[in-house]
């Protein structure tokens, strides 16, 4: 009897967890597929009676509702993809090389540089936001792809370095030593042996970094809010404040979460690996 009760409580808790995690996303999706009139019914309908794609048509400029208030989502999607992919690739290249050096080589100031980098993980946004804006505007890098990619990279590097450092520490160095004895150069060993064996860790780091980048809002709001460089997050906040039809705003929200949601759906194991590797010790 007591065991049954416990099982029941567990099931209810798991059900609550699923509803809590999914409901807001479901609600935005349902709203985006409703007409404005249907979405404003009182009391609400929990399921869309007649799903429609008009909000998405309006959003991408094909439908009659299309107005300037909701324009620019195609460009913003492109901007997000370019900026986040660029920052992820740059972060990974720099972090993998540096993490390998920290894990395997000896050089002067190694400890100082490593801990100074990791320490920036605990710096709040406050510490760097305003100076970064001034530095970027001094170099004419405000509202450019390269400017925002550089700022993202500096922000994502410490975590990527930390995860990759732990990945390399966990790999046995004996294979690399054997390759060296067989006459392989350091670069060959790195490219042919180290990178392939570390690739699960690299993939996890890349996915976590990409998701971080996709969610950025404050930095691009300050550093890249022109139409030509603003990411989806900045555009969505702008649409939201312009009194666009709210079904269309919800459609824009769904467009902005589509890519991370797909990543979670297919690659969730890697995300958990990445989070766990980033938090150990």
């Amino acid at each position, binding site marked *: 009897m007591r065991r049954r009760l416990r099982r029941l409580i567990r099931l209810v*808790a*798991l059900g609550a*967890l699923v509803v809590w*995690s*999914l409901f*807001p*996303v479901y*609600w*935005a999706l349902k709203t985006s597929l409703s007409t404005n009139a249907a979405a404003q*019914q009182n*009391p*609400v309908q929990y399921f869309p009676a007649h799903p429609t794609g008009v909000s998405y048509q309006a959003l991408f400029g094909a439908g009659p509702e299309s107005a300037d208030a909701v324009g620019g989502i195609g460009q913003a999607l492109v901007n997000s993809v370019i900026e986040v992919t660029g920052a992820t690739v740059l972060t990974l290249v*720099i*972090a993998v*090389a*540096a993490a390998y050096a*920290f894990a395997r*080589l000896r*050089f002067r100031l190694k400890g100082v*540089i490593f801990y*100074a*980098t990791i320490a*920036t993980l*605990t*710096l*709040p946004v*406050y*510490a*760097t*936001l*305003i*100076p*970064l804006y001034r530095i970027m505007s001094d170099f004419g890098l405000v509202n450019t792809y390269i400017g925002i990619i*550089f700022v993202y*990279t*500096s922000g994502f*590097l*410490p975590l990527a370095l930390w995860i990759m450092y732990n990945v390399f520490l966990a790999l046995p160095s004996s294979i690399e030593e054997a390759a060296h004895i067989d006459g392989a150069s350091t670069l060959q060993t790195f490219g042919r042996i180290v990178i392939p064996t570390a690739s699960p860790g690299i993939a996890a780091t890349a996915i976590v970094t990409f*998701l971080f980048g*996709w*969610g950025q*809002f*404050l930095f691009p709001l*300050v550093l890249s809010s022109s139409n030509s460089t603003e990411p989806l*997050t900045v555009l*969505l*906040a702008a649409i*939201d404040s312009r009194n666009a039809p709210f079904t269309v705003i*919800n459609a824009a*929200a769904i467009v902005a*979460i589509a890519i*991370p*949601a797909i990543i*979670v759906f297919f690659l*969730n*194991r890697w995300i*958990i690996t990445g*989070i766990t590797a980033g*938090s*150990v010790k």
Partner: protein
Amino acid sequence: MIAPLVVFIGVLALYPTVLTIIEAFFHIDPLTPPDHFAGFGNFSALFADAQVRQSIENSAWYIVFGVVLIVVLGTAIGLLLRRPFRGRGIILAILILPWALPGVVEGVIWSWIYNPTFGVLNSFLKSLRLIGQYQLFIGSHQIETIFLITLVQVWQITPLAAIIVLAALQSIPNDLYEAASVDGASGGRATWTITLPLIRPALAIVSVEALIMSLNIFDQVYVLNANAGTGASLMSTTYFLTFQDLNFGAGYALSLMATVCTVIISLVIYRIIYRKVEFS
């Protein structure tokens, strides 16, 4: 191999931090340089500003609600998912979804849930007869506004806490529980006396993470509260002071205070909770 790292961290993380520390003591007018040394002028001006004082108080609430909810819910979910069961993989995927989504999008999604005229929260509460008529949830009461905005961030950050706690729980050797049940400790008591003390390092990490997130809360506030005083956070006030009022000196001073607060509170949490645990 480390040169690019040194350049990026040096120029775009450490140098700006030093600038924040220095510039907080200067009077800055972007239109009429150069900057003048102001001593503690920026700081005393801040404390004279009612809006700033309000946002400091608000951020204290954001921290209290945020840290408590994230740590408690994260630990509870970690415990719930500790033992393997059929479908756990799917539950984990569902669990991390909110963490992977942009905070600003979550703010927008929840703003419609909280909507005073046709929001689902109003409809739901009314159908349960918990409220007589539709309410204005955001913007009428300070504490209520802050709590509901925090809830959006809790929705986002709790999965991270749960995953970290779960990883720590799974590293606890099983024979410890067997020994405990031989000694007569079971269920809830074993959790309190054995499990939680053993995952102290994870709880410390989760607490500090929740603290930093709560002190930095911006995206959700920007969307749900804009620049109203009711729910203004330290970060949103810093943003509006600096980039809307162009009061860079005040922005720097507030930034420096928030940075120092973060470091101090993080260290205190670590000292209280963190104990190195070794399984031999």
